[in-house]
């Protein structure tokens, strides 16, 4: 939230194991995210990045291990505490997940109405501002079905930012965006971090954005079923901790 918290641990994942029934997706995940850091979760398709995100925001409970926010256990906290924590999160889902029965404006208005005391005119100002941040100014009255997939993604981003959250979770924000929008998105993420001091956790495959925005990166290895690297991606590229990370960061498919 404010600058003096910078440097304190915001999110801590301890010995996390994630499973769907008997099928263990990932085990033994350990990492810490500091206040105001931008952390990228990367790894091959289907390795469990979205699943990790769903655990971090409390939609699934871990089969083992713990997740801590500001040194307090999130997994074991009561329903009310969880709800309180949730209000400080902004989440962008992989498919956008806009409420299809509402216009873009109403999608952003809902959290504002629910948790702030703003007047209707203030709310509509905030809505236009958030939409303009993601390049969708003027689309207030459109329904999600009337815009393209990439636009839905951006509108989802605007909704995630509606309450100026302390932590932003983005699941593949730049998938389906053109290069220009996606680099503008990277700027936006850094800007949000700098101006609001938000902590940002991004799932992405986009190598360029990984190198541009990430302070740290978590690499999930689909073969080993655990994280095999954690640190600054530029350092990782210079001195790869293992071959899979090197191949991921250099787009080496290993077939030739």
């Amino acid at each position, binding site marked *: 939230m404010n600058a003096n918290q910078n440097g304190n641990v915001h999110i801590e994942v301890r010995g996390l194991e994630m499973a769907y029934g008997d*099928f263990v997706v990932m085990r033994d995940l350990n990492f810490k995210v500091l206040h105001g850091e931008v952390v990228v979760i990367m790894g091959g398709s289907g390795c469990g990045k979205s699943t990790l995100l769903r655990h971090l925001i409390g939609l699934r409970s871990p089969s083992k291990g713990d997740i801590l926010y500001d040194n307090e256990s999130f997994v074991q906290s009561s329903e009310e505490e969880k709800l309180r924590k*949730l209000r400080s999160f902004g989440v962008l*889902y992989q498919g956008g997940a*806009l*409420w299809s029965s509402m216009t873009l404006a109403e999608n952003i208005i809902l959290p504002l109405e*629910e*948790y702030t005391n703003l007047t209707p005119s203030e709310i509509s100002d905030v809505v236009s501002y958030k939409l303009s941040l993601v390049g969708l100014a003027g689309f207030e009255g459109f329904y999600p079905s009337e815009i393209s997939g990439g636009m839905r993604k951006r509108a989802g981003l605007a909704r995630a930012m509606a309450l100026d959250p302390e932590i932003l979770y983005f699941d593949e924000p730049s998938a389906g965006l053109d290069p220009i929008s996606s680099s503008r998105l990277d700027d936006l993420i850094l800007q949000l971090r700098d101006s609001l001091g938000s902590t940002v956790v991004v799932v992405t495959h986009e190598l360029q954005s990984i190198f541009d925005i990430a302070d740290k990166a978590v690499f999930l290895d689909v073969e080993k079923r655990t994280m095999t690297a954690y640190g600054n991606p530029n350092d990782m590229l210079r001195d790869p901790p293992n071959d899979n990370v090197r191949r991921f960061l250099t787009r080496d498919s290993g*077939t030739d």
Partner: protein
Amino acid sequence: MDAQAQKAVFTVERAGEKLVLRLSGVWKLGCGLPDIKEIENLPVEGEGYKSITFDTSGIVGWDSGLMTFLIKVLRFCQTNDIQFDQASLSQDLSSLLSLSQAVPEKEGLGEADSRGNYFHRLGKVSIGKYEEMMASVSFVGECFQSVLGLLKGRRPFRWRDFYLVVQEVGFDALPIVALISFLVGLIISFLGAVVLQRFGADVYVSYLVAYGMLREMGALMTGIIMAGRTGAAFAAQIGSMKVTEEIDALRTLGISPIDFIVLPRMLALFLMMPLLSIYAAIIGMFSGMLISNIMMDIAFPIFLNGMKEAVALPDFFLGVFKGTVFGVIVAVSGCLKGMRCGDSADAVGLAATSAVVTGITFIIISNAMIDWVAAIYGM
């Protein structure tokens, strides 16, 4: 080239430590590939060869058919510890093969359903059913909590959604309910005409129609129509919101999907179903009156008089009560199935179907129970 030369064939030759597979002809799907089982009949270890090489110079055309064959050979080599000489394949084939092997197969999947014997599966199914039941119970509990919260004024209520649903389940349902209850009234009075005329008790047809429509058919038919119309729609709407993660998006905002989605729907049906059942009963009685006039020459005043003697206020209230109960059943089963929907498009279809089946089953069961209790108390 004659047709024989075009056909895909392979021959096996020994060359010292090697086994040479000589492929020739057109290796395309649908052009009669050699039986892939022949691979399994290849001579195995201990027969003096350690690797398999290919001679593909005789191949004139190929597609995925050849690849599936090669992958089969590769598997055979891996299981029997024989070296697979990939370098002897042409460049194209070799790189396609490498691509197909680049990502190892995910283990521990795809056998989940076939695993275990009869008892194992029986146990799994029972546990599944038990969990389903517990989930339903806790869902009903959550709905109840949500209603209490609303009554205490603690929870915000989505009035706009509520009005929309009221229109959907109330006003928009009027034509179909009218049509069905008109026909039901007609059927009852037709039955009455056939049966009662034999005993010369024609006038009592009004009794039959009024009693039947008010106490039974009005609410029952409306309930069944609404289960098919509205219950399925609720399940499909909520189910697809689940698939697109809209429900998750609500949850992570700290908004309870029960308050937000289920409650307006439940209240709308709770209010509209009694009205619809009254409406259905009135239309049914009207059509009964019309038919008895046409078929049995019973004048309208006589019919109305007979009706007044036959039914009393309790009959009316019983019908209204049933309508309310059925409304809650339709809403709960529709919303429950939607919320329990899986994560794919076909799960939405299943949810809708099962909402209708559950709804109708519980409507019939509760109808019988209400009648039974009413009979005990002489109502």
